[in-house]
């Protein structure tokens, strides 16, 4: 088995030195997150908040991207964000657990639940998986709505994370989280596991026939995705200091999926570009109040029609055209 896997991995494009490659991938993003954004918005708490939202949402979208990588359309990320949010909320309000311990707990619970539910459900494919994960989001909301002891309501007065008192501090934390998530997913996608995932997306039977334990890999991908959703949910619960069953609905799950898609499914950077692009576009359209939602919808369709492989696919396209023009 190892030999066949190496054969797949061996098809990876030119391999640079490990460290320089990591730096090359991380530095531009780090420069934007730590340099550009804080400098631009340091004096504007509102926009800093928007960027914090963007960073945490991107983190959750990165997880969804990972399930796209194994060829599943996952509309359940809202469910795991809700779960993670409630874990953080309950631990911190009932037992006074520190935010810094709640967050890993949220990740762990979401990953375990994701693995338990994912193990059987991941046998489904295509639209069936999409539909059943969508149902899962709704089921999770209804479960918390009817959970005994919660009284059908939300949890209020969730303490803010210790040590993150200013919007800038919280933003920097969110940016660090996003960078860590990006590094994790990028590392996965470019490693042997990434090639295993891609082989599963293209042809699951074929991957199975060359000895890849398809069932295990897809559960791993789904559990990582769920854990990232759980962490994002925990962050938002603490940032907004409340959580309700309706905090994450089917529309949120759909949005996570759209962010990945609009950024570009072929790029690890895709979900981040897609999330920030749409979050910022939505804020900018706020100035035209009544048509905000309508223009947002139109914008989305236009991107799909003209860049069906994501916004990032524009750059290779431009480079090619530019290159051809020069030569």
């Amino acid at each position, binding site marked *: 088995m190892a030999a066949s896997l190496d054969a797949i991995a061996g098809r990876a494009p030119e391999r640079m030195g490990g460290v320089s490659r990591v730096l090359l991938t991380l530095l531009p993003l780090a420069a934007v997150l730590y340099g550009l954004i804080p400098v631009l918005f340091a004096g504007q708490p509102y926009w800093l908040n928007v960027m914090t939202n963007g960073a945490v949402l991107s983190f959750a979208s990165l997880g969804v991207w990972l399930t796209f990588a194994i060829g599943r*359309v996952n509309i359940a990320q809202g469910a795991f964000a809700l779960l993670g949010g409630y874990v953080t909320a309950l631990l911190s309000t009932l037992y006074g657990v520190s935010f810094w311990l709640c967050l890993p707990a949220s990740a762990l619970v979401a990953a375990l639940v994701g693995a338990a539910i994912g193990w059987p459900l991941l046998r489904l494919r295509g639209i*069936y998986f*999409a539909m059943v994960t969508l149902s899962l989001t*709704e089921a999770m909301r209804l479960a918390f709505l009817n959970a005994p002891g919660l009284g059908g309501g939300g949890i209020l007065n969730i303490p803010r994370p210790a040590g993150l008192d200013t919007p800038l501090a919280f933003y920097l934390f969110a940016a660090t989280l996003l960078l860590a998530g990006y590094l994790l997913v990028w590392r996965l996608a470019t490693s042997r596991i990434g090639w295993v995932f891609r082989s599963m997306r293209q042809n699951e039977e074929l991957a199975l026939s060359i000895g890849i334990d398809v069932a295990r890999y897809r559960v791993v991908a789904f559990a990582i995705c769920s854990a990232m959703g759980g962490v994002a949910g925990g962050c938002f619960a603490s940032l907004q200091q409340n959580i309700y069953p309706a905090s994450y609905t089917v529309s949120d799950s759909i949005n996570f999926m759209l962010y990945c898609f609009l950024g570009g499914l072929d790029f690890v950077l895709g979900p981040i570009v897609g999330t920030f692009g749409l979050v910022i576009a939505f804020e900018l359209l706020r100035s035209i109040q009544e048509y905000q939602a309508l223009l947002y*919808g139109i914008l*989305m369709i236009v991107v799909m029609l003209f860049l069906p492989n994501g916004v990032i696919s524009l750059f290779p396209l431009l480079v090619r055209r530019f290159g051809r023009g020069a030569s």
Partner: protein
Amino acid sequence: MEQILVNGTILAANYALIALGITLIFSIMNVLNFAHGQMFMLGGLIVYYVCVVLHLPYALALIAAVVIVGLIGMLFEDVFFQRVMRISNREENTMLLAVGTSLLLENAALSLFGEKQRAIPPIVSGVYRIGNAFLPASRALVLVLSLVLIAAVLVFVNYTKTGRAMRALAQDRTATLLMGVDAKRISTLGFGLGAALAGVAGGLLISISGVNAGIGTAISTKAFIMIMIGGAGVISGSLLGAVVLGFAEAIGYALIPGSVTYLLIFVALIVFLLFRPQGIMGKPAA
């Protein structure tokens, strides 16, 4: 008990229109129409607008809903889906485009009609009594209209030339093309018909329970549940799914609190899919 049966029958008939529409679109185009609930919502709001704002008769409103939503469906197919199917390099892309169109419709409806819950005055008055159950005349009318429409669609799909072409296209696109069927036209028609069915279902249901601009996702979710139960792309399956969901909902609402009903339906659905992932009537390993 009789009341539950009556309510279940009305729900099942209305849901069958929704499930038939989404199944037609899925089987012909292989597109999961995420915008189906939004088309339903739009049909309802058009009926509201024609009936309440313009003071025109209900029959006219229903026709307007069918025509407008049907045309929107045809337009979407012709302008959006054909292009994306041609140039995208992943099959998920049409599903995501459908999500995009659903957002577009929902936001357009929000801008045009606002976010208020809309309802129309009863079309006919009076109540029928069946055993111990009460059946308001307006609900009876909705039931009859739904059943007539279902029958009409089944006759159309099974016995007319265009309907047969649609079924052929669903079975084997290449062979159908070779038989000289104008696949592009039939696809557009099929998408329009599916959309029109969603529109008319919304136009009928607004007379019972009212419609608001945000209802779309919930209706789409119901449509998905039905085709997961019955099997995606199978017409008999979609009708079966509608009957199962309609009665499950009617029984649940009568016996347990509303939101627990759907929680149980979801749990049952997930367990059911573990044993029969292709639904009751679906083809295995699709």
